């Protein structure tokens, strides 16, 4: 009864092409935005920001970038951690070597550097695909791992690759408290989400999806595979790079190359798969799932273990986490390969008919 489109007619193509054509969706999104920007900062405990919300926002941004590459353009990448690292270290260099560099410009510089590296390592995608491309992206991952550790100019001389930033401010406004950091990340995420959504529903998005679905036919239509694939790598790496810079600057404060290692790449890939490939909303679902899951496990497993007489200490906990992670991946791939986003849209379709069965 609630979710009906009756009476909502579109009188122009422009109206039909809106991101949320159904009015109820628009109200829901407005409520969500109000909640996120106003209610949460006012009500949430500080621990929640540091442990859950800020990581969620930044990783959701990275997952968004990865989804563009893997979900929309169909180019598999196992080197996302590397692009985050490039973004983080490049932003660090801009921040530290240029006196008084504004934060946004540093982040932008990080993103653009990641774009350059991304396009470079995207060149193999012009010749190879699938699992072969996966191995090629691993080359990017390990090479960047090494570069951040061993190349002095990357880390501005730090011998172990670890660097730190402090005293961030945005045009004079300090970014010290968790709430301030949260709002900053939220604003950036919202902006990027909007830009990404515009891209994927525009001409370039269709080109990416065409390449994903059938690249030989795509070239016959007149789509240039080179431009489509490299632009996907470029856009994706830019977003991932900015996310990496945020991760280092805003979330961690000080970091070393291991923060962006292959486990990070796998983590992001899992987010995108579980959340839903080829869906902007899916990136959010996936990030939320992966960020919240360990916390849920840490809080419930010891209690559950005590019920059956098992002592669940931290080591066992981390092993169990691995098992549950792996099991969930397989579960999702079997039950709903299109991820939570598909479950969500199926639920909405059912809701449109509710309370009628069909």
């Amino acid at each position: 009864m609630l979710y009906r489109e009756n009476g909502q007619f579109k009188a122009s193509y422009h109206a039909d092409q809106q991101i949320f054509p159904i009015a109820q969706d628009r109200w829901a999104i407005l409520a969500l935005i109000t909640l996120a920007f106003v209610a949460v900062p006012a009500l949430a405990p500080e621990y929640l920001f540091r442990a859950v919300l800020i990581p969620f926002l930044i990783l959701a941004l990275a997952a968004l970038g990865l989804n563009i590459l893997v979900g929309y353009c169909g180019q598999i990448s196992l080197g996302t951690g590397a692009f985050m690292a490039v973004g983080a270290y490049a932003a660090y260099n801009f921040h530290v070597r240029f006196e008084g560099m504004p934060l946004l410009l540093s982040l932008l510089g990080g993103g653009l550097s990641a774009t350059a590296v991304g396009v470079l390592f995207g060149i193999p995608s012009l010749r190879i695909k699938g699992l072969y491309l996966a191995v090629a992206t691993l080359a990017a991952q390990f090479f960047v791992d090494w570069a951040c550790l061993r190349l002095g100019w990357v880390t501005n001389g730090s011998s172990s690759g670890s660097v730190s930033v402090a005293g961030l401010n945005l045009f004079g406004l300090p970014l010290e408290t968790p709430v301030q950091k949260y709002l900053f990340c939220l604003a950036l995420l919202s902006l990027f989400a909007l830009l990404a959504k515009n891209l994927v529903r525009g001409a370039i998005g269709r080109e990416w999806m065409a390449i994903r679905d059938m690249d030989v036919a795509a070239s016959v239509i007149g789509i240039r595979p080179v431009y489509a694939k490299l632009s996907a790598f470029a856009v994706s790496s830019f977003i991932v790079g900015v996310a990496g810079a945020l991760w280092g600057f805003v979330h961690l404060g000080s970091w070393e190359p291991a923060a962006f290692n292959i486990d990070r790449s796998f983590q992001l890939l899992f987010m995108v798969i579980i959340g839903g490939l080829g869906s902007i909303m899916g990136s959010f679902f996936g990030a939320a799932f992966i960020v919240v899951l360990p916390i849920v496990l840490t809080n419930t497993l010891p209690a559950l273990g005590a019920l059956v007489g098992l002592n669940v200490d931290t080591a066992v906990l981390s092993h169990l986490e691995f098992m549950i992670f792996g099991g969930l991946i397989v579960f999702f791939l079997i039950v709903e390969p299109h991820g939570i986003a598909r479950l969500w849209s199926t639920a909405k379709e059912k809701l449109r008919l509710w309370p009628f069965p069909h």
Partner: protein
Amino acid sequence: MNAIVSSELLAKPDTTLNPPGLEPAPGKRIGDVILAVNNITLRFGGVKALTDISFDVREHEIRSIIGPNGAGKSSMLNCINGVYQPQEGSITLRGQSFRNMNPRQVAEAGVARTFQNLALFKGMSVLDNIMTGRNLRMKSNLFQQALRLGPALREEVEHRAVVERIIDFLEIQPWRKTPVGRLPYGLQKRVDLGRALAMEPSLLLLDEPMAGMNVEEKQDMCRFILDVNDEFGTTIVLIEHDMGVVMDISDRVVVLDYGKKIGDGPPDEVRRNEDVIRAYLGTSH
């Protein structure tokens, strides 16, 4: 031979004013040669797919390529498209040689095609699939699209209007937002045609557009093809197995067998050609 198009199209037009050997549909004016295939030979390793094929296609006509399975018909289209590069021979479009063009350049030259095995983009809706055909004409860059203001937005709406006209023409309005993977085969074939039409081609290559269709679907598809040829003046090169369709709607026919050309001319002439009959039926009458 079966006649599956409506009877008015079988009425013979007044041919006294047209050059001999060409029988255009009522009111159609066949123009000059726009596509010339000259001595094309295509080899895959040791196998010769096409041997010394030459024929031409005139503007506004419907030219069919027929032949038994494996004769090399799809390979011929792939050569015209730029997907395969023939080892010998040349292809000229309006005098411009394009033997080594890649598919995009061919598309830019105004050539579109449909595929035998339906190369639709399964993850996208009907609307988006046909919109990809408009990509050639979309000029806004990445940044404009990301902001989706001004020129990018106008472009989207303009091209959407064109695509909607094609959707109306092909009568697939109820399914415009459906993912194509969910549509029945006949409708998918129409989407394939729609995508090719969206490119506003001057030359349209149709690779077995009626394969796997029932009688009603074939009638519809014939109607669309003839309408495209009539209303938009698009030159059509058609690969088809249904002889009734070929003989009824074609202006001229090329017959291939084992990669060689064994017949070329108006349908009536080809129908009586002994080599053609032998290739298809194995006996001569």
